[in-house]
């Protein structure tokens, strides 16, 4: 029996369907990320679980109990808001104590648990400061401490890292993940950042236009996207338009015959492969009939630090993207703009999509 269950949840605003037919279960201790572009319904879903948005249809259960009609303040759910929503007129300690006071704990216990929560996020020294006297990262940790101090049944994170700069984001990401594991907190996180979702979540839910596109582990979603939307949303990818011509054969609209793993729908209209799975070899390299090969010309070479990225155009006019680890040979590999190469990748890395 799963811990949280969304039974075909629905949210309508007039004739607009913000969320439709949303069914998902979470196990205890699991960290699940809702991922999708803005307006896809992920935040609405989170807010329905928190109790801020009434559902239009379906039920939500938590630990076997139906909480669909329970008002927000009676659900034991901790939430970290986008922008943190700290109480500006209360000190850090008071912010963290708020939920405990609402639970009418005695003063010694509150003091103890506030201390514990603040030490967990390494902010004991800041207990008497006001939120506005803290940096963004510190405020974020106060919000986290405040949400966790109440020993919530579920932790909700709404775009928790969006206000932090890139370096801090990596740090806090790891920190949240570690705390969540330590405490075994069932966690639902909403994000539009696929890196964030991939690196933190046990499972991902990709949403689009109010519906679930695919649910799976980070690797599943990246390696085996079930449709173009997921493939495109989960990082860069190449799409070659065309049609299926046999179990594994695929003919592109540009006329090239390619091989795929053979999975995918019969009516597949495109073959996709990830840019880091392809290799660029000299144009006079010997043929390898087991691999897919397209001749191409380098159009743009972009240096990205740990990887280099090549935009190419095949001899048939197909745009391609290939990345390579920035190893010591790369600089001398002759990948200058205008160079002619062969782009080569394995049929196993080719996925047919509708």
């Amino acid at each position, binding site marked *: 029996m799963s811990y949280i269950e969304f039974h075909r949840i629905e949210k309508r605003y007039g004739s607009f369907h913000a969320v439709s037919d949303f069914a998902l279960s979470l196990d205890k201790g699991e960290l699940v990320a809702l991922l999708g572009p803005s307006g896809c319904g992920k935040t609405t879903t989170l807010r329905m679980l*928190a*109790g*801020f948005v009434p559902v239009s249809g379906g039920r939500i259960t938590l630990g076997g109990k139906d909480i669909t009609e329970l*008002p*927000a*303040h*009676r659900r*034991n*759910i*901790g*939430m970290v*808001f*986008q*922008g943190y*929503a*700290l*109480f*500006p*007129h209360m000190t850090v300690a008071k912010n963290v104590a*708020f*939920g405990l006071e*609402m*639970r009418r704990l005695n003063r010694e216990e509150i003091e103890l648990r506030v201390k514990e929560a603040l030490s967990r996020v390494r902010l004991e020294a800041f207990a008497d400061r006001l939120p506005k006297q803290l940096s963004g990262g510190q405020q974020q940790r106060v919000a986290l401490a*405040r*949400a966790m101090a*109440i020993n919530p049944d579920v932790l909700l994170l709404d775009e928790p890292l969006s206000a932090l700069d890139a370096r801090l984001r990596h740090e806090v990401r790891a920190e949240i993940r570690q705390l969540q594991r330590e405490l075994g907190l069932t966690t639902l996180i909403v994000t539009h950042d696929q890196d964030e979702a991939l690196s933190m979540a046990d499972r991902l839910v990709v949403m689009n236009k109010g519906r679930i596109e695919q649910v799976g582990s980070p690797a599943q979603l990246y390696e085996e996207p079930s449709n173009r939307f997921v493939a495109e949303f989960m990082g860069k990818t190449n799409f070659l338009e065309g049609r299926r011509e046999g179990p594994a054969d695929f003919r592109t609209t540009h006329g090239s015959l390619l091989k795929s793993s053979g999975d995918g729908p019969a009516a597949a209209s495109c073959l996709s492969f990830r840019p880091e799975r392809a290799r660029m070899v000299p144009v006079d390299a010997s043929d390898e009939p087991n691999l897919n090969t397209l001749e191409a010309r380098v159009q743009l070479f972009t240096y990205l630090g740990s990887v280099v990225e090549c935009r190419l155009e095949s001899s048939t006019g197909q745009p391609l993207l290939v990345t390579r680890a920035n190893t010591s040979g790369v600089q001398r590999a002759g990948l200058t703009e205008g160079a002619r190469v062969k782009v080569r990748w394995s049929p196993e890395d080719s996925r047919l999509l509708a």
Partner: protein
Amino acid sequence: MKLPRLGTWAYYGIVGATLAFVVAPLLAVIWVSVFVNKIIGFPPTGYTLKWYANAWALVDFREGFLLSLQLALLATAIGLAIGVPAALALARARFRGKAFISTLLLSPMMVPGVVAGSGVYLYFIQIELLSGVQLAATLPGLIAAHVVIVIPWVVRLVTTALLSVSENVEEAAQNLGATPLQTFWRVTLPIARPGLVAGALFSFIVSFTDLEKSLFLVGPGRTTLPIAIINYLEWNLDPTIAAVATVQIFIIGLALVISDRYVKLSRAF
């Protein structure tokens, strides 16, 4: 280097002139209030505090002062009790006719006091003719009229303050287990406090100094301070008036200083 310096001097000059323009009349009133001469003339032949004693000795001033004080406090209290819930609805709820209600609540500010005063007077007379209940020239009637003067200030300032409280913060409180009522008392109200204090303060001041609207509604033996001043001025011109005005200035100044100690009023606007 020369031009910016000239600019700086011009800047200070204009600021100083503006300040002087605002403050000079107040200082003049305070100065005149201690002249010894009954006929006001410059320079005075000496200084005295007897006009303050004289003002207090005059029953119209003493009772006018007490009535105005009482009126301002009651009107402010009632204005808050009505205006804060109204502001809450305007800031938070969505309903039809919201813009209309908002304008309606602010309209007493836009109607000239004399017009509104005569309107209220006629309205009171109508009520009296229909029901036999006298409102004009009574304390309840005066309070009702002052509540109307006060409400736009409360609604305006409190609505602005409430709009500055992010709904996320209120949701955070509920998420942590606070009922909607606890959320209001522990989170919304404290954050909106500067606006609340400013609303109360301005209510007190506009009620305490109101002349036009009260003119129609006061009765024999029930005169507010501004009206007592006008009445006195009709037959007398001696420093007693200046003494009364000085007391009024100090009361308002004190209210400003005290509230500024508790909340930074600049945050309310």
